[in-house]
């Protein structure tokens, strides 16, 4: 299977770029240079196929997009911090009150966030909502960046986040509550969880191999191409092909990258970013600028890459101990790898 056997669709979601790659299962036909399927979804083949096979791929790609649209809309309605009608907004506004009924998808998203917190000893903590608001990240990131150097917002004393133990979820009964003063943000896990969910649903419903990338959080499911899905690992998911980084291939699970360099802005003249150190309630000052991790799922990969940024030098031993392949980039561009991540010595590898 070659890249010509892949249907590709690119669209905007969650304030970032999503990419769907769907593998064809039919034998490849003769190439037709410059062919494009187009279509109402904007879907187009990423290469060239014979017309008959290409038409099948376009139909499959359109169905994949429809599944992704359905799932991503549900995730957005459940856990967007910037939508007044989201369940997350309602739960934050009800902090200190009685348990509230929540939807199955919100319960699963919150469970994933609490699991990430538990597995990282609280390094990836969803109770950083108030800290992010204090840094001016209280609306879609495009608006935050466009606002320029905004004055600091008073939200009370800065300090450790309240802690994930103050979030209460009855998963079976589908009820949740927050202790008084707790505000949650599921940004550290929700996008990766959504990528896993989309990939799983598409692969199951279409019987095809699929890669779903949501702003660089990548999940794959179903049969992978023979040489795997080729992923360029770099600081910014929107980087051009010539940007420093490394190309690897994956065939299952997920791959995620966390960085302090991309979702960054200034407030009151101070440069800040979105990865909060739960111990201080401030943007973490890490020795790593970017960490990429491969794991059994995208949400696990993102949990580990975020925790590694927060753990700093100790992340190396932690990742090795649990056997997670990772690529960690220091601010000077030097790279460390763990647990079978391939050597980083090809052209353009310098980070």
């Amino acid at each position, binding site marked *: 299977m070659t890249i010509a056997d892949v249907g590709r669709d690119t669209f905007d979601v969650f304030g970032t770029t999503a990419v769907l790659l769907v593998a064809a299962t039919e034998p490849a036909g003769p190439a037709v240079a410059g062919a494009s399927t187009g279509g109402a979804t904007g879907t187009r083949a990423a290469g060239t196929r014979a017309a008959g096979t290409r038409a099948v791929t376009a139909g499959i790609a359109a169905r994949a997009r429809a599944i992704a649209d359905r799932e991503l809309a549900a995730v957005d309605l459940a856990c967007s911090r910037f939508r007044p009608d989201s369940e997350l907004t309602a739960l934050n506004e009800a902090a200190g009150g009685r*348990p509230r009924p929540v939807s199955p998808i919100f319960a699963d998203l919150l469970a994933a966030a609490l699991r990430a917190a538990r597995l990282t000893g609280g390094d990836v903590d969803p109770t950083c909502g108030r800290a992010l608001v204090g840094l001016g990240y209280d609306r879609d990131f495009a608006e935050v960046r466009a606002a320029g150097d905004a004055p600091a917002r008073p939200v009370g004393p800065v300090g450790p986040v309240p802690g994930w133990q103050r979030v209460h979820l009855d998963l079976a009964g589908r009820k949740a509550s927050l202790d008084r003063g707790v505000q949650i943000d599921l940004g550290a896990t929700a996008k990766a969880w959504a990528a896993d969910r989309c990939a799983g649903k598409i692969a199951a419903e279409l019987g095809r191999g699929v890669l779903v990338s949501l702003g660089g959080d990548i999940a794959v499911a179903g049969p992978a191409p023979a040489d795997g899905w080729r992923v360029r690992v770099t600081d910014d998911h929107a980087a051009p092909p010539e940007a420093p980084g490394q190309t690897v291939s994956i065939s299952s699970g997920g791959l995620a990258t966390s960085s302090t360099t991309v979702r960054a802005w200034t407030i009151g003249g101070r440069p800040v970013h979105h990865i909060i150190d739960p111990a201080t309630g401030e943007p973490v000052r890490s020795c790593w600028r970017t960490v990429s991790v*491969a794991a059994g799922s995208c949400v696990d990969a993102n949990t580990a890459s975020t925790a590694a940024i927060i753990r700093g030098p100790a992340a190396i031993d932690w990742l090795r101990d649990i056997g997670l392949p990772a690529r960690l980039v220091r601010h000077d561009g030097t790279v460390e790898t763990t647990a079978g991540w391939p050597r980083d010595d090809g052209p353009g590898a310098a980070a």
Partner: protein
Amino acid sequence: MPGDDGRRAASQARDSGLHRVSRLTWRAGVASLACSAVIGVALARHSEASAVTTHPQHSTPGQIVIPAKPPQPSGGSGQVNSGAS
């Protein structure tokens, strides 16, 4: 007649005893119902609180899952980028 008086007195004593037992039974019944209601409300509250403060057991294993195969070296450009957003 002395015999009739004795039977009447015995009958009155029996009726009086039955009334007393009946009153006690009724009061015990009311008290039991009240206790049941109080205990029921208390248990319901305790049960709700216990459920809500119990953190979830996620369906996936209780550890970060390693990939079936680590990333492999690959040349050229990627089909997608993994980077921060």
